[in-house]
């Protein structure tokens, strides 16, 4: 559906995107995720036609659109602030693109009302000024304005970033529902990993203009391809070589002790897993406990590593700081990355590195 091939974007001396290949499938909710300044918005704006790439091609539905202006690409866009025209009513905002295309008055009105109905805007709201609408309603107007022209792709540039937490959650769902209802291919930009994981079919994680990993939310969470992705997504503890060596000794696993090793906070536990399985217990000392209501966060020091973990506040017993305890870990949950390249170690690499140990 959308292909970005060897895209290169620079602003003066600054190389925002050195080389980018992306492929978005039809009907997919595709997210560009990364910290600010990583080039994700630049990639989206290149796709929208607001930035002319220095090299490479943009293809939409098999057609090269690299040199086409924004409005000829059949892409609709919802801006970070929705960019609703403050001097126009809701109806006029939605009808703007139709009137620019010189659609007949009656046709425009029918199309505007039709799309408004589908995004659940009432006739009464259509007559209002955009400033009179709530954040959620404004978002629906912005989506309706983009969709009324029947674009092939919908681009969303951090549309939830300026809202408060509660509204953000609510609108996230609304946006996802609208997308599923229209079935339109959507490219979404965000720096919020939670949003990306909850909404996307697939996610591309950006870092310094480069895509580190493309995959389903579960893939990038459980099998982060690089050290950057592992650190950016989710919360993990850094393990010491000593700790990894103890895990190897207790379980017979062959983890590398020279690689950078991480453990997700929810994967460690203070109770022996019910099924037993491959988990091994290592002695440690509770350093601190922070109460969060739903759960408590613990820091347990074991073999030089500060293991962070979550304990559900379900009324069970809880060790206090200063007490000795046991941390249970499954060796296959430990994420390992090459200490220089940052690439994830495969089974094979681990053994190679393990063999190479003195």
């Amino acid at each position, binding site marked *: 559906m959308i292909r970005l091939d060897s895209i290169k974007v620079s602003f003066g001396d600054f190389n925002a995107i050195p080389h980018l290949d992306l492929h978005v499938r039809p009907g997919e909710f595709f997210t560009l995720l990364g910290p600010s300044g990583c080039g994700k918005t630049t990639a989206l704006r290149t796709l929208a036609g607001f930035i002319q790439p220095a090299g490479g091609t943009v293809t939409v539905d098999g057609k090269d659109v690299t040199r086409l202006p*924004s409005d000829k690409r059949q892409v609709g866009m919802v801006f970070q602030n929705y960019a*609703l025209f403050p001097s126009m009513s809701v109806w006029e905002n939605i009808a703007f693109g139709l009137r620019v295309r010189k659609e007949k008055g009656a046709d425009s009105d029918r199309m505007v009302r039709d799309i408004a109905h589908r995004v659940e805007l009432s006739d009464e709201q259509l007559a209002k000024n955009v400033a009179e609408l709530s954040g959620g309603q404004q978002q629906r107007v912005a989506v309706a304005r983009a969709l009324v022209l029947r674009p092939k792709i919908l681009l969303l540039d951090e549309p939830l970033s300026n809202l408060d937490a509660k509204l953000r959650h609510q609108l996230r769902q609304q946006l996802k529902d609208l997308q599923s209802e229209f079935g339109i291919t959507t490219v979404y930009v965000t720096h919020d990993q939670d949003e990306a994981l909850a909404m996307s079919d697939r996610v591309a994680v950006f870092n310094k203009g480069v895509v580190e990993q493309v995959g389903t939310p579960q893939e990038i969470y459980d099998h982060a391809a690089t050290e950057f992705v592992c650190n950016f997504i989710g919360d993990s503890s850094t393990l010491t070589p000593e700790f990894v060596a103890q895990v190897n000794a207790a379980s017979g696993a062959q983890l590398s002790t020279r690689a950078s090793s991480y453990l997700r906070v929810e994967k460690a536990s203070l109770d022996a897993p019910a099924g037993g399985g491959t988990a091994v217990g290592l002695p440690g000392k509770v350093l601190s406990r922070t109460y969060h209501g739903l759960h408590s966060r613990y820091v347990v020091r074991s073999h030089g590593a500060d293991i962070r973990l979550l304990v559900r506040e379900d009324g069970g017993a809880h060790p206090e700081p200063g007490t000795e305890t046991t941390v249970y870990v499954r060796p296959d949950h430990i994420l390992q990355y090459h200490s220089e390249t940052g690439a994830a170690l495969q089974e094979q690499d681990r053994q190679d590195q393990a063999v190479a140990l003195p």
Partner: protein
Amino acid sequence: MSGTPVRAMVRSPFVLVVGVILTWFIAAFLVWPNINVLIATFFPDGSFSGRAAEKLFSSQRAMKALGNSFLLAVALSITVNAVGIFIVLVTYYFRIRGSRILFLGYATTFIYGGIVLAAGYKFIYGDKGIVTSLLLQVFPSMDPAWFSGFFAVLVVMTFATTTNHMLFVANALKGVDYQTIEAAKNLGASTWTILRRIVLPMLKPTLFAVTILSFLTGLGALSAPQVLGGREFQTITPMILTFTNSPTSRDLAALLAVILGLATMVMLAVMSRLEKGGTYFSVSKVSSELQKQDITNPVANVAVHAVAYLLFAVYTLPVVLIVLYSFADGAAIQTGQLSPGSLTLDNYVRVLTQPAGLRPFVVSVVYSALAAVIAVGGLLFVARLLQKYRNWVASVFEYLLHIPWILPSALLALGLIISYDHPNPLVGGAVLTGTTVILLIAFVTVKIPFTLRMLKASFASVNSSLEEAAAIMGAKTLYVFRRILLPLVLPAAAAITALNFNSLLDDYDTAIFLAHPLVQPLGLVIKANTDGAEGTEGVANTFVYTVLLMVITGVTMYLVYGRSGRRRNRKRLPAVPPSGSIDATDVPPAAGSTASGADSRVPAAPVR
């Protein structure tokens, strides 16, 4: 801190002292003079009389002047918008080659305006002007007085008052969220459609405001019609001046001033009404910065460039010629022919060393400095109290202090003249008319609204926790004011003083009514020189004055505004909040820093 009860307010001795002085000042110089004008108009002998109105309707000259003023006001509203919107768009909206240079040209009206600008145009395009002399040599049959009457007044005032557009419309344009423009592009709109349907509608409230200001400027015009209007084009304010000078027709002057004042108030009311009706603030919380737009049509692009540079020439030619001819000798000024040999420093030496040349300059500097310091010094306390206490008493004071903003300066001046031409108990039984004090009072009065607003804004920008922290440690009101607040607002106060000083330096509108005959400020001398009284030497002197004024104004503006941009990263209060932010924090947009009646606008006084 809001909604302090009045009773709690008067318990503080500090408030009481300031309150008493303020009440006296407002009663004596803001309220009583204007009531007196009404009395002089309608109750000349203690009982109601319509004689002034009868006299007015039977005076063909006065009726013509009334008509002319409204004609000028309407015409000016159109021409200033046409030119103003165009120059703002080419400097800030469209990608035009050399737009920075264009900006410098269009911004020349920031450093010279009022009588100086009118005089400058006359010396260049007037019947004995430099350009006219040159043109006459090429076209001997042309009319030497080609640049006079309605046409000349309209042209000069149009190019003098685009300052408002450069300030406020430009500011509003910068506030347009660029994402809306991108959204419109994405929806297929052309450059022209975006400008017409998205950008201009968002500027509408500001455009309304500057239109009304232009209208009022045209209505109250004084120096431009006087200098360039000639016999056939006179307007209300010059007429008021003429009638004021003869005691038998003072009632007529008063009536004209009342009409002018009423028209001004109606227009300002319309303006604030319109503002309440529709503000198109961007609904977004974070907006992206405007980027310049290409004009895609090559023909349109060339045309816009051509017009932009033509206007640039119109704006800069007077400045360049004035600077050039300020070094020229009398012969060169008379014939317009300039040779490198005739350029000397003689004019500057004469103005700066001979008492006759230097005197008006010194008079103006002393008056302006005194008035600026008094206004800021006095209002420091008032602004602080008005910002701190919010109740009906404070609101009443605040409204009263804005009287000079809603009334034309001619009306205020006339009020002062007729109120204090006999011993008056309000000022301890003294006679003020004809003394040097009355002009100082008027200067201070005229500067009150602007000073008050700016000071209030800078007090408001001080973090209130500082004050609370000092109070919790036991500091008393005056101590907090002296040690905590004053140091923080002092840079702003200094900047406001400088701006006030600037705008009073070339004042004409107030001085012409009130100045002592022997202590004449610069504006009056420049005006006298345009009548040819002092010959070529007078013209040369005026050029020198103009250059000096431009240098002083330019330097002040640079100190106040120019450096704040570079200091942005340092943790210091900006000297004066940029006009946009005052609008946002202080009062409804545009009215905040634009509302005017007198020349109290920031920073240059337009031709009136």
